[in-house]
């Protein structure tokens, strides 16, 4: 029988279990407290809103990554896709009206994701290989279309987007709101929708899913297409924030996204993971970067700390399983 939180906290041994079970949130809270103690700049609205703006792009692709990982796959192409799609969006903003530019970018993202989806689902290619190939292709195309240099927004539409991306509602940056909205949508889908249920089932036992009459290939395909679409939204967000689309955007973002999903307790074997925990994973990674920046730690030691935190988080999850 499920215990209430109160019961779970009723003895010291249980507190430990509770902490281990909800380790992602626990690490997050710990980091927030630590950051607040160590730096008086941390809890300023400027810093917090900066932090949120910084993580939103990676956050959005992390949700796509989560959905792919839930099926037991992986999508290495998302970082390069952000670059290609940001360039695409910048070109479109300068040529067509804004709503059309947004819609076209998302459709192109869906299309690129579909290529990976098609290769994985219908050609039975290993996800790692298919998306690795797509990753190089997308990065290359980004450079070709931009001729190697950033493309700045030049139209009123571009100005509108840039304003939107740099403003806030009630102190929360607009682009963070876009990210949160996507998290909530994913949460609802994974919990209350057939689509979510089926991809979790597929990830935990593909053969049993097939024999239960689930259209395994169709859902596999869709998952990559969705990841591509989310990469498009992330691209629009980051391009708008900087007022330009550059082929250098999204470098190694796929790795941060994977890290966020894993810190959030998802299993790379599929079938296990939630949107809220992935959100925590994204925030944890962002927080580490943020606090190390505030402490003026140079970027190489930062990478070492990041790696250590990932290992720590995953080790904690092993206790949970016991």
């Amino acid at each position: 029988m499920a215990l209430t939180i109160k019961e779970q906290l009723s003895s010291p041994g249980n507190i430990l279990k509770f902490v281990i079970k909800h380790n992602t949130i626990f690490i997050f809270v710990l980091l927030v407290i630590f950051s607040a103690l160590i730096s008086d700049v941390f809890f300023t609205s400027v810093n917090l809103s900066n932090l949120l703006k910084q993580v939103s792009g990676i956050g959005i692709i992390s949700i796509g990554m989560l959905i792919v990982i839930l099926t037991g796959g992986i999508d290495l192409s998302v970082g390069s896709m952000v670059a290609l799609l940001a360039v695409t969006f910048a070109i479109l903003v300068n040529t067509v009206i804004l709503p059309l530019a947004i819609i076209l970018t998302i459709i192109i993202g869906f299309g690129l994701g579909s290529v990976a989806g098609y290769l994985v689902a219908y050609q039975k290619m290993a996800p790692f290989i298919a998306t690795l190939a797509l990753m190089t292709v997308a990065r290359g195309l980004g450079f070709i279309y931009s001729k190697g240099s950033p493309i700045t927004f030049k139209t009123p539409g571009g100005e509108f987007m840039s304003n939107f991306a740099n403003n806030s509602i009630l102190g929360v940056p607009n682009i963070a709101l876009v990210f949160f909205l996507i998290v909530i949508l994913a949460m609802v889908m994974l919990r209350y929708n057939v689509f979510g249920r089926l991809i979790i089932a597929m990830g935990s036992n593909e053969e049993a899913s097939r024999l239960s009459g689930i259209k395994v290939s169709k859902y596999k395909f869709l998952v990559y297409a969705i990841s591509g679409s989310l990469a498009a939204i992330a691209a629009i967000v980051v391009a708008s924030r900087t007022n330009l689309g550059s082929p250098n955007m999204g470098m190694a973002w796929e790795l941060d996204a994977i890290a966020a999903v894993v810190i959030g307790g998802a299993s790379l074997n599929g079938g296990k993971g939630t949107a809220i925990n992935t959100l925590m994973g994204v925030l944890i990674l962002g927080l580490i970067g943020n606090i190390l920046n505030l402490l003026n730690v140079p970027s190489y030691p930062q990478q070492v700390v990041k790696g250590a935190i990932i290992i720590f988080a995953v080790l904690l999850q092993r206790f949970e399983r016991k």
Partner: protein
Amino acid sequence: MKNSESEYRVEMTGISKSFGVVSVLENVNLKVKHGEIHALLGENGAGKSTLVKILSGVHQKDGGQVLLNGKEITPKNTHDGQVLGISVVYQELSLVNDLSVAENIYLHKLGASKFWMNWKKITKDAQELIDSLGFEIDASSRVRDLSIVQKQVVEIAKALSEDTKVLVLDEPTTVFDPTDTQKLFDNLFKLKEKGISIIYISHHLEEIFKIADSVTVLRDGVDTGSMAVSDTDTDGVIRLMIGRELKDLYPVRDAEIGEEPIFEVKNLNGRRNLVHDVSFDVKPGEVLGIAGLGGSGRTETAKLIFGADKKKSGTLILNGKEIKCNSPVDAVGHEIGFVSEDRKEEGVFLPLSIRKNISVTSLKSISNKLGFLNVDKEFENVLGLIDKLNIKAPSSEVNVKNLSGGNQQKVALAKWLSIDSKVIFIDEPTRGVDVGAKVEIYNLINEVAKKGVGVVVISSDMPEIMGIADRILVMHEGTFYGELAKSEFSEENILRYSIGKPLKQTVLKKNI
């Protein structure tokens, strides 16, 4: 301890174990003599597997004492157990699919040996070992390509080693047909003669009376008795297992069988020719049994029909209309169900809850047009089925991984019983299920048939198939060799057809 040699090889006393707040074993005793076959019986979830896993080091006991040859042991992991001479064939298969048979058999010994492996020798040794067991498997073939029966044989071969003193077999014969089982028994007798002590877990009570010397019974984590097999009988053992008498194992078949077949198969052929020229029909309300030896093509037939494997040719007719079934999606669309024999790989979702397992086939009916689930309805359905099938679990949210084998089987069945079907294929319906639960499943099959469903049951358990089927088709080398009407049911007749011989008396091979 008496003298240097104690009377018992294994003495487990006062063992207790709990997982979290759930207590699984309480003060359990198990004493096994040298060179005896000791049966361990009990319902699904009684704690049999947990007890032997404590012996072998998979789990650690919370209390009690384990003696081996009179000396206390506390194995911390399976390696410790192996070193002490405790070998186990676990209930769940644990082979590495991508390695060869020989590599699997010697896998656990690899770490201890020299740096370089002589693969040729290992393959040769493995082949000798398998041959000596009397089974036909190529030691160099990949485990992935083996049938489930062959995998089980490899599992047994893997457990045997020169220093085995205690051999534990946790439901080794669930996938075996009678001839395989007999081969295993012959081997066990040989081992027993060498002085090896064998702990034997099974839900097939008749096996116990064939091979065991003594028996210990568990009920809900408590041992309810230990005695020599000669001092008890089936009823006595069942009483200790479930705490009451069990009247009838098989339900009275009272479903009304329709005139016209609900489902017909004509000239079905598989791509790989494991199955050829299969034709049969099943009528609404009928329970059609399919018998045959392991590897005769029974499972493959069901998989071909269901669209899980590719057909070469063949016609399927549902309610008089020809249908196409090229994938399980098609099959489910036509309301054809299939319960797989391999529950771990193909039946259940181990890391998911009972609720998510059961409702995976019925998501359409419990969601709206946009795919949003009606969770209340889902709980209602699932809890109803848990109750009906008497699935033993603390709640519907428990992961199937943490259920005992028999209860996992019930979940696999529940998945298909939660939706309407016209025809349902059930491959080994009671594999690993205890006697009490068997009766529940048989009643359920009967009830499904009563609704006018055509039920096709594949089973290697001969008493079972004779008990529940209205008619039996016997498969031999990929096609149906003969048909038995209820009046002709007998183990002998089934076996004769299984090995491709006509019946003894006047009944000749029927054309079907």
